[in-house]
């Protein structure tokens, strides 16, 4: 089980009066095993939404809850994949993945099995004993995803996880994530500014306004994906060529462009 709920959430940075209002009345429900992407102009507070679910920031008012329990602090039930990977450079790939399991006080034998499974899942077996700096950016992000998946979290929080990767690696990782989501579905909150990525990956896409960020509209991608049978295509470029995909993408683009236009940016 892993549902996420934002209930009348505001976030103000700095002093409560006279601070910068980053988020304004965010209301969003993400169901168990649902993949929701948030897109929005930079600085709109989409990452802040994720950080509140992770427990890194408290809301200024309103409630962020996971499975009906208000979030108070970070924890392994809400695994985070960071844009800059945030691996521990002094630990090997295996040790990076193992840390969360050790923190759960699992027995060595059980941990070894789970780590081996995570390494296999992300095609990292031959790099198990490498240090992060010996790996490419794409491989490092695989480690970060393995580190998150191995915890068997209720929800997976991904903060522009492919933003630091080059275009080719990015596509490979996007396809990989779709494969993962099919094998091992999770509740996912995915932050991105890449519209195509959001449409390709998500069940629903939430579009945010400029600061103070509000949720402007939420588009249902899942029903279109099912109706047009996107999943019969293996490759991302084939999906992106479909008329229904292009239509949704353009719809989101226009919505985002209005945001920029409205403020003359």
């Amino acid at each position: 089980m892993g549902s996420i709920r934002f209930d009348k959430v505001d976030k103000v940075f700095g002093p409560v009066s006279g601070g910068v209002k980053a988020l304004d009345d965010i209301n969003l429900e993400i169901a168990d095993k649902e993949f929701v992407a948030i897109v929005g102009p930079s600085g709109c507070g989409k990452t802040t939404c994720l950080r509140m679910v992770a427990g890194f920031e408290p809301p200024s008012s309103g409630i962020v809850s996971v499975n009906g329990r208000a979030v108070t602090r970070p924890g392994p039930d809400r695994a985070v994949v960071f844009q800059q990977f945030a691996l521990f450079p002094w630990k090997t790939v295996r040790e990076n993945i193992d840390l969360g399991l050790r923190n759960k006080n699992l027995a060595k034998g059980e941990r070894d099995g789970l780590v081996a499974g995570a390494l296999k899942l992300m095609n990292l077996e031959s790099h198990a004993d490498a240090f992060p700096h010996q790996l490419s950016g794409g491989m490092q992000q695989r480690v970060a995803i393995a580190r998150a998946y191995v915890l068997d979290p209720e929800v997976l929080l991904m903060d522009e996880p492919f933003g630091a990767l080059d275009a080719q690696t990015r596509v490979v990782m996007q396809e990989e994530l779709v494969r993962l989501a099919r094998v091992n579905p999770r509740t996912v909150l995915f932050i991105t500014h890449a519209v195509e990525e959001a449409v390709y990956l998500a069940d629903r896409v939430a579009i945010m306004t400029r600061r103070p960020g509000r949720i402007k509209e939420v588009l249902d991608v899942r029903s279109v994906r099912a109706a047009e049978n996107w999943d019969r295509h293996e490759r991302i470029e084939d999906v992106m060529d479909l008329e229904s995909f292009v239509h949704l993408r353009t719809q989101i683009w226009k919505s985002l462009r209005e945001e920029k236009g409205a403020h003359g940016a």
Partner: protein
Amino acid sequence: MGNAMIGGRSWIGLASVAALLLLWFGVTATGLVSAGRFPSPADFWLSLTQISLRGYAGGGLLAHALQSVKLVVMGFLVAIATGVPLGLWMGWDRRAEAAINPVFLIIRPIPPLAWIPLAILWLGLGDGAKIMVIWFAAFVPSVINAYAGVRNIDRPIIEAAQMLGTPRWRMITEIIAPAAAPMIFTGLRLSLQASWTTLVAAELVGALAGIGFVLNMAQQDIYPGMILVGMVTVGVLGWATTAALSLAERRALAWNVAGRD
């Protein structure tokens, strides 16, 4: 970087040392600098053999050197064993920082050497006073760099560890300390330098053995050759202990790309 480059650079280094030695020989042999002011290579060699074979100031060179190294190592270890944990704690815990920083700011401007009279008054001319003074001198860079090391850790590293449910003690030993390690080692190098500076000064003022004591005796005997032997010995010992520390650093930070150069 190619091997040819490294080879080329070490040749340049050797050449400049050779040039310095030649210059030394030249200015003393020609009488440009009188033997009373600066010893010639021959004087230096005579002094070196005298202290090595027959002893000077109550002992052989090896005995004096070992005495100094022993005190530096002991003072340094006491200083870093207390300084690094304190720095880590101050970096991690805002309340600890708030409590300790003001005290630190008051004590810090006092030059370590100014503690020597008090240390001798308390602990006499023996080892204890020197270890205490080295402790005060070497403590500060250890604390400050460990503290800064913690403060400079990328926030996502800490957040990733929190997200993984890392308990408090493991957070310090497996996340905070290794993440701050490059800065901690910078602090250790400065602490080691401070240890040598302080020890030699303390031995100059009040000691019964050690390289500083040799220097003090040689000055009283107006013995330039022996003064130079003492200075060179301190230089060699300082270089050797720093090299040992660098070796430890390379091993401890093998994971660190920046440390690999």
